[in-house]
């Protein structure tokens, strides 16, 4: 065996967190006599629009996507994360994750440390929270600033102060004051709704799937978009990294959660990626679209850290990072994520890249620039290779084309992918997420639950 072969990494923290009870009788016994609470969405602190649902965090924690995180964080853990992006057990982690409720709900519940709280979702028992500590967020605005950084404190990559135009900042700014900290356990496994069910590969299952497919090396492609041909080329060309041969697999992992107006619907995103392999542009044997439930925080380098953790937990050996990774607006340097993974960002607690600090990650970054059509090369060409003037494809140009009902040529978007957009356009009456979609999605969520 070549000494250059790369092996599948262990989960972050050394073992997968799995906190899902599948035995209904046992679950019923566990919650007997316990107080319960209906999970509420986090509402925008000014507009009242839903911006987050903690159920997605509970899912991602209990199925191990966020290993080694096991629950809602204690105050000391949140403070440590904000200072040096580490959990109390030393492993690196970018964001505070808390179960927050209002003072009124807290009074009405009358729970405290040592109590078990049953969390209901869509009117059914869903999970339990074993409360270890109750603490308060004194100043959510300060928490929001500390979570993302400021130009003064993080001069390496933060370019503008965060404000209410940043959807991730808004999530933290909108948290309720009382935090119930402790471990979550899912006691009633939700069923993913169509079409998300066939893209549900929690870490144990994705690792088994990689094994079954004989994928030793797997590169992840983060997405929140319906793929155009530029994305397709990023995916398949980034996969040429690997060890002694290109990566065996390309995992597309779509972040599914609260939507912003103008995004493509999540249904079109997952089926759009699937259409890439159904159309044979990337063979299905080498390509696996999947999802993770998470309300994006758009923290660019910090988000990339979470993405690295999720995909290492899923069993990937490599992670592709591009320009403006998980970014919105101009808050961060365009290349902040690539700076983190090549040099580190000391002000966030990374004097070296996250792969080169103690209790860090094993997944390898593959930093990429851009593909665009070159009329001289007559092909999709890489910005750092082709020396000609290329025809850049902006997202807004493509969206304009779609909105007008003009089918993009197949060198821009594969016809199979466009068909998926139109399929969901017919379903929702709109090609992108409008207000109706956003509101309805937060009501329906991505799961259904049976009686326990």
């Amino acid at each position, binding site marked *: 065996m070549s000494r250059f072969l790369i092996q599948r990494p262990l989960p972050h923290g050394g073992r997968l967190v799995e906190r899902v009870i599948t035995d209904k009788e046992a679950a019923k016994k566990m919650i007997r006599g316990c107080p319960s609470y209906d999970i509420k969405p986090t509402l925008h602190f000014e507009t009242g629009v839903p911006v987050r649902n903690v159920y997605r965090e509970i899912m991602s924690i209990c199925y191990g996507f966020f290993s080694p995180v096991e629950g809602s964080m204690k105050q000391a853990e949140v403070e440590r994360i904000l200072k040096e992006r580490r959990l109390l057990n030393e492993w690196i982690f970018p964001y505070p994750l808390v179960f927050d409720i209002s003072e009124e709900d807290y009074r009405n519940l009358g729970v405290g440390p040592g109590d078990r709280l049953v969390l209901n979702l869509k009117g059914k028992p869903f999970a339990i929270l074993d409360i270890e500590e109750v603490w308060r967020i004194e100043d959510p605005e300060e928490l929001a600033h500390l979570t993302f950084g400021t130009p003064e404190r993080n001069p390496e990559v933060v370019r503008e102060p965060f404000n209410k135009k940043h959807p991730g900042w808004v999530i933290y700014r909108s948290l309720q004051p009382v935090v119930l900290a402790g471990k979550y356990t899912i006691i009633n496994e939700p069923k993913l709704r169509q079409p998300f069910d066939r893209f549900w590969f929690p870490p144990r299952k994705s690792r088994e799937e990689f094994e079954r497919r004989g994928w030793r090396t797997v590169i992840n492609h983060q997405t929140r978009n319906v793929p155009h041909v530029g994305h397709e080329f990023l995916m398949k060309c980034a996969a040429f990294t690997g060890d002694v041969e290109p990566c065996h697999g390309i995992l597309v992992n779509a972040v599914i959660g609260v939507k912003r107006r103008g995004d493509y619907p999540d249904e079109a995103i997952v089926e759009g990626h699937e259409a890439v392999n159904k159309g044979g542009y990337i063979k299905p044997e080498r390509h696996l679209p999947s999802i993770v439930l998470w309300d994006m925080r758009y923290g660019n380098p910090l988000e990339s850290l979470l993405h690295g953790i999720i995909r290492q937990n899923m069993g990937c050996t490599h992670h592709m990072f591009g320009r403006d990774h998980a970014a919105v607006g101009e808050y961060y340097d365009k290349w902040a994520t690539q700076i983190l993974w090549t040099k580190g960002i000391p002000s966030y607690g990374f004097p070296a890249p996250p792969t080169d600090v103690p209790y860090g990650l094993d997944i390898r970054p593959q930093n990429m620039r851009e593909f665009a059509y070159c009329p001289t090369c007559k092909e999709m060409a890489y910005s750092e290779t082709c020396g000609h003037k290329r025809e850049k494809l902006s997202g807004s140009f493509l969206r304009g084309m779609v*909105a007008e009902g*003009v089918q993009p040529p197949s*060198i821009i978007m594969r016809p199979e992918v466009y068909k998926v957009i139109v399929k969901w356009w017919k379903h929702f009456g709109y090609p992108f997420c409008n207000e109706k979609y956003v509101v309805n999605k937060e009501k329906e969520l991505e799961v259904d639950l049976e009686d326990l």
Partner: protein
Amino acid sequence: MGEYFIVVLLDDYRMSKIRGTGLEEHIKYMFGGELRLLEVKVPEELKDRILQEFETARVDSRGAITDLPVAFMRELFNQIVEKKSLGPEVVEAVLQKVDEIKKAAEKESEYLPPPEID
């Protein structure tokens, strides 16, 4: 100064409408000839009116006016076919229907008619 334009994309359906109007020779190609488009000239004064009427509208670095309502773009194409022209009179004709377009644009955030493909 004063030379702005709006890009009008041409799919097969629109190509069939253009045929015979004498506008074929003005068709420009991108992406290896796969994307066909026309550019409608917009003088300074009309550009200002467009930006005033439609708050989403932008002018990009090439002088292209973008992010216009779909209803505007549809009417623009209709007028091109009707007037067999890419000159300012096309935009003027569109702007004469500005109230109608604005009303349609408002509804565009709720509903957009999907294209008929199989």
